[in-house]
């Protein structure tokens, strides 16, 4: 099968996005360094979400024995390649650890709670854990990708069996490491605070973002002369998954915030309280409306899910909202009086930078492999796929 050629136009656009992203961060450091550090972390975390989201999608489809999704599985399998850039960004985060994490300051020893958390929240432990997780993600993601590519030539059941086993291991490791990494990278920004739902909340956001990104990438590739096998039947199912995770996110968000409000425990409520003050007073309700209510209303339509040119608009919007959610998670530790509205030109620039990096890496990797997992025994089922309702 002929591999895909990335048109120069798309390449240039994505490179321009990367330039915008880097420019925004550099400019950000000159204006408000503290905020730019938070922006860098948001960029890193969003790229982790996108990269692991691809692996999550691929492994979910593999372990559930899904047939319909074979034609769209190659692109998410390649998302792992973004993690090399994440590796670079993580080094930057390590260098800026004092600008981001209160617990890394020497004064933390005098803070009763932080002192008690020192066994977990200390610089050495943080660095080791993050490097370990990143190494595991790259190893597992590459393993899954390589077995899948190997299957293109072997075309047999036994390679598929191995692939399913790798996918099972991937999803299990992903569940624990992504949760723990999110505690380290994001939750510990506000180290006095904790809530158990946090790990599910970030997962809900990950799945939401991953499905948005998948729809967009498939559409872009298809518009530029490849993946003709994907039709409205497949878009319909991807749209349904996006709808499902839009609802799931709302369910998790509601449960977390309602229980926080109801119990009203000091160490827990502070998180939400901080995000309803100053610039956040408008931001947070807007997040709830545009992350859930609006996409939910659109995605209910069967018509829309079956029209790629319409679905892509919703997916582009939800991808953006996935990023806004990351801002919501990361920026809470900043002085809310100082930052004003937590979304400015810099965050917009970072968003473009993130999709530029992710899009460029994934699409560029895509030109080097078969467009479809041609050796998958379920390929025919996926090609013949049509909706019965």
């Amino acid at each position, binding site marked *: 099968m002929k591999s895909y050629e990335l048109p120069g136009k798309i390449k240039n656009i994505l490179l321009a996005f990367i330039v915008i992203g880097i420019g925004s961060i550099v400019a950000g450091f000159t204006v408000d360094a503290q905020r730019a550090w938070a922006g860098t972390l948001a960029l890193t975390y969003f790229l982790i979400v996108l990269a692991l989201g691809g692996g999550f999608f691929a492994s979910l489809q593999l372990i559930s024995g899904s047939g319909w999704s074979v034609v769209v599985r190659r692109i998410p399998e390649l998302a792992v390649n973004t993690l090399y850039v994440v590796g670079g960004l993580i080094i930057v985060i390590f260098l800026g650890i004092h600008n981001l994490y209160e617990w890394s300051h020497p004064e933390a020893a005098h803070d009763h709670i932080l002192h008690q*958390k020192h066994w977990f929240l200390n610089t050495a432990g943080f660095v080791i854990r993050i490097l370990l997780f990143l190494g595991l993600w790259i190893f597992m993601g590459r393993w899954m990708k390589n077995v899948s590519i190997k299957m293109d030539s072997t075309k047999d059941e036994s390679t598929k069996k191995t692939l399913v086993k790798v996918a099972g291991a991937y999803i299990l490791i992903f569940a624990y490491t992504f949760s*723990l990494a999110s505690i380290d990278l994001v939750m510990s920004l506000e180290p006095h605070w*904790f*809530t158990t*739902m946090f790990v599910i909340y970030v997962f809900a956001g990950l799945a939401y973002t991953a499905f948005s990104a998948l729809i967009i990438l498939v559409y872009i590739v298809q518009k530029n002369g490849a993946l003709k096998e994907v039709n409205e039947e497949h878009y319909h199912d991807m749209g349904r998954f996006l709808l499902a995770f839009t609802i799931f996110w709302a*369910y998790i968000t509601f449960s977390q915030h309602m229980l926080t409000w109801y*119990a009203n425990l000091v*160490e827990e409520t502070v998180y939400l309280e901080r995000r309803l003050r100053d610039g956040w007073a408008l931001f947070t309700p807007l997040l709830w409306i545009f992350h859930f209510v609006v996409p939910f209303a659109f995605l209910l339509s069967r018509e829309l899910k079956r029209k790629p040119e319409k679905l892509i608009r919703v997916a582009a919007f939800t991808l953006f909202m996935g990023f806004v959610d990351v801002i919501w998670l990361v920026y809470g530790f900043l002085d809310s009086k100082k930052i004003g509205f937590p979304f400015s030109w810099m965050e917009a620039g970072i968003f473009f930078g993130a999709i530029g990096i992710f899009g460029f890496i994934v699409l560029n990797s895509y030109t080097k492999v078969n467009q479809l997992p041609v050796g998958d025994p379920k390929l025919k089922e996926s090609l013949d796929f*049509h909706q019965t309702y």
Partner: protein
Amino acid sequence: MSASTSIYSLNKTNREIERDILSPMEKFPGKLWWFTFIINAGLMLMMLGLIGWTFVEGLGLLGINTPVSWGLYIVNFVFWVGIGHAGTLISAILYLFRQRWRTTINRAAEAMTIFAVMTAGLFPLIHVGRPWMVFFIFPYPNERGPLWVNFRSPLLWDVFAISTYFSVSLIFWYMGLVPDLANMRDRMKFEHVQGKISSFGKKLKYAFVRILSIGWVGSGKTWIHYEKMVMVLASLATPLVLSVHTVVSFDFATSVIPGWHATIFPPYFVAGAIYSGFAMVMTLMIITRKAFKLEAYISIKHLENMGIIILVTGMMVSFAYTMEFVFAAYSANAVEQYVFINRLQGPYAWAFWTMFACNVVSPHFMWSKKLRTNIVVLFIISIVVNIGMWFERFVIVITSLHRDYIPSSWEMFIPTWVDWGVLVGSFGFFFFWFLLFVRTLPSIAIAEVKMDEGHDQLAKGMGH
């Protein structure tokens, strides 16, 4: 679905399918059925007797005390509501996920859901102590002055969530039954024409199936409407599956009791409910297929799939346990940490470790293809998981309460024989209904099985 024959193909004619599934309903029950029915009816009567006694004597007959004011009744309530999750999950969520293997197990699983929710509903009723006052929780216009229900109480949300779930599940189940009831009616009509329906019992049954099949004719138009309705009901039932145990978890999580207040509770409870529900479906299906010789319909492949779901949901539950411990360790909150250390080492550590062995360790046997296609192993695991899930609720309810903030208000909870009697009797109550069901209504959705078979025949004809 692509047009190809599936591994679930039966290669049976419609006539054979009807005969296989309906024959238990057309014969007089055998000795085995009567034996189990009488035992379970006896247990149910014992439970009703004990409940009656607590009404007369008071809740002092139970082991509850201060601070453990929620005892086994609440444990049992959460346990049975949890069991009641699998049925609608199979019929609604697996339907949306196009899982064809659900066809032969959905009917019995839905029936089980309804009976489990009925059993669960008993417990809050008898737990309140004065059940004749229970009507207070219904928000109807009343003349008791400004007295109104407390809409901020999760106990009230429970009433709404469970009654809504019960109603929708019942409608969904009944609507699925209509074509099959019409099938029973038409078979009886044939006998009627031949003059074979003479006894009073048979006449009564004929009248019932005629009324319950609400004039189903099975025309193309009827089926179009029917399919649309199933889709709509499935979509409506899906959020309800999640909402019920979410609201049950709110009963605990809205409080400020360490061990109860955790925001992760909603999805954690739902995963646990699906886990235990599937285990119960597996137990019942293994018995039913054997007793009614339905092995061709509920094949080892179906049981294997259920085993895989048990493995996956079991690992989700393990994940939630792990996260609870991770966060307790991270919290730097002495009370929170104590609760979890107490679970591991305290006086109820035996309950925790039973739960751990049953819920965290046992599902991992399902990794092996050999074990998950072995009926004896599946049967044992399904029972072990249910024991584990009962203990999970015991651990959550009892261990979080028995040590209050000050040691002077620490008290052990020791269930009395009345507590145990009601628990055992609740199984009798549940099986009483289930046994009645398998003898009166088709326990496999005949119309759906025929439809799948039809698709397969068509696919074969087209040479795919």
